[in-house]
């Protein structure tokens, strides 16, 4: 029998990581994601699977505990919300430099600063362009449902270890706090220490006589070597761009106008597509699931078909840059966003699309 539950997004991903065989969670409370740590504590992960759940003294400590565990080959993660994720930027850059796999969850709230605890998507740049220093990318997964919050736990760990990369689940307060039906799957067993030694020969598990010592470091003072390290990193990112793009096409086949939206904005746009079709507008939705790698080619293809694209984000215009870079001037790309924790409504975004592209009025944007 299928194991179906009604869960909050935050609970779903917590249950998801347990079932994905996660070895350790290290985190610090912050709204709207504290349920992740609370759920893990309440479910006694240690007794259930042996997974360690630990409240750290700060987000900075959390990310470096993750670093330590990841560098020893374990499936580890942390979660936070915007201000806490900002504090982790140095640590994330260190994990990028050392190519350590891990799962990071940002349940985004409105910024800048302390901002608000309401949902937002204004951390796109930070997640996708790199909020830390140096040239690096993370794989960024954008769940649009509680089920995906659950699913991306397992997918996240898989991708993280496949590519030795940090995977960030970029969620938001709405997805984190809402309840939906979730179908759970089987428990993936945690790796034994012996399996880790075998599967991850780079991991610092203790130097045995049969191999050289393992070193996890992001430092090389020799610029020639450092450049090679960086070039190899870039090659990896390129490879990921070629192989790991994920997106969902909703009513795109005959679309004349396109919403581009991820996460909870995509849910809103999905409804707007339905409303639009009722109004007789041939509108579709391209929902990027991976924000890095971005579905650039898909958008370039769609640019040949549609008359205009509207990037809908709960931000002042961040992802829209990637849409524009994808279509490279081939078709008008506009942005519509709500800020500060406000979520747009389906008819609202549909009206904007109509006004921008169809009625061609000089529509007054909320954000400018």
């Amino acid at each position, binding site marked *: 029998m299928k194991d179906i539950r*009604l869960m909050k997004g935050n609970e779903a991903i917590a249950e998801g990581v347990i079932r994905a065989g996660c070895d350790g969670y290290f985190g610090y409370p912050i709204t709207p994601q504290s349920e992740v740590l609370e759920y893990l504590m309440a479910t006694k992960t240690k007794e259930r699977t042996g997974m360690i759940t630990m409240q750290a003294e700060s987000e900075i400590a959390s990310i470096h505990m993750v670093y330590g565990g990841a560098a020893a080959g374990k499936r580890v993660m942390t979660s936070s919300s915007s201000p806490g994720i900002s504090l982790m930027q140095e640590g994330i850059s260190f994990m990028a430099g050392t190519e350590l796999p891990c799962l990071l969850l940002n349940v985004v709230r409105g910024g800048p600063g302390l901002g608000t605890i309401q949902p937002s998507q204004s951390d796109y740049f930070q997640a996708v362009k790199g909020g830390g220093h140096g040239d690096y990318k993370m794989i960024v997964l954008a769940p649009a449902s509680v089920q995906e919050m659950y699913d991306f736990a397992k997918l996240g760990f898989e991708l993280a270890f496949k590519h030795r990369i940090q995977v960030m689940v970029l969620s938001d307060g709405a997805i984190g706090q809402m309840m939906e039906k979730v179908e759970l799957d089987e428990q993936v067993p945690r790796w034994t220490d012996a399996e880790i030694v075998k599967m991850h020969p780079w991991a610092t598990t203790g130097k045995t006589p049969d191999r050289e010592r393992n070193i996890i470091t992001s430092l090389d003072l020799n610029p020639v070597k450092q450049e090679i390290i960086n070039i190899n990193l870039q090659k990896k990112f390129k490879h990921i761009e070629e192989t790991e793009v994920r997106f969902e096409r909703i009513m795109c086949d005959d679309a004349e106008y396109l919403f581009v939206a991820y996460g909870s904005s995509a*849910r809103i746009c999905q*409804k707007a597509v339905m409303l639009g079709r009722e109004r007789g507008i041939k509108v579709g939705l391209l929902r990027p699931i991976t924000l890095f790698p971005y579905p650039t080619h898909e958008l370039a293809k769609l640019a040949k078909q549609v008359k205009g694209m509207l990037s809908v984000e709960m931000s002042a215009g961040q992802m829209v840059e990637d849409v524009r870079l994808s279509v490279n001037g081939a078709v008008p790309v506009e942005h519509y966003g709500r800020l500060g924790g406000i979520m747009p409504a389906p008819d609202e975004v549909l009206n904007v699309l109509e006004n921008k592209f169809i009625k061609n009025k000089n529509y007054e944007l909320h954000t400018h």
Partner: protein
Amino acid sequence: MTEEIIIAGFGGQGVLSMGKILAYAGMMQNKEVSWFPSYGPEMRGGTANVTVIISDERISSPILNKFDTAIILNQQSMDKFENSVKKGGVLIYDPNGIVRHPERTDINIYTIDAADEAAKLGFKKVFNMIVLGAFLKLKPLIEPEYMRKGLEKSLPLRHHGMIPENEKAIELGKSKVHEMLVLS
């Protein structure tokens, strides 16, 4: 079938758990459901509301600004949500504490004296179940057996003894809802 509901009132009135029971029951009846709360510290003593959607199809937006049904339990929420009911939709409210009653003529308005009834029962906690009963009378989306399953799933084990009381309150609610005369 898709039913889009907003339930809104004070924190402490059981708004969120009423939504949760409804969503659980819908899920048990094999429907798609979503439950989206207002959250955060503003809930402390302030207002609380939750959007519940029950549908036969995959749910698109869990966040809405128009609803098939609004269940309204204080004045602030009335001010905020009266105009969010779709034309032809349903507004249910408990008149207790309401100063400015709803004025729309293009929707169907019902009242339920849930606070009074709960007080009469001497059991204030079932207030929200009485309201839920009123809703279910008007929108019989969920069959009673699934309501029970929803209660079982959403209440912690130690409260399962209370399920009969809750069911009774739901039945009471069903019997006490009545339509407001629209003077127009």
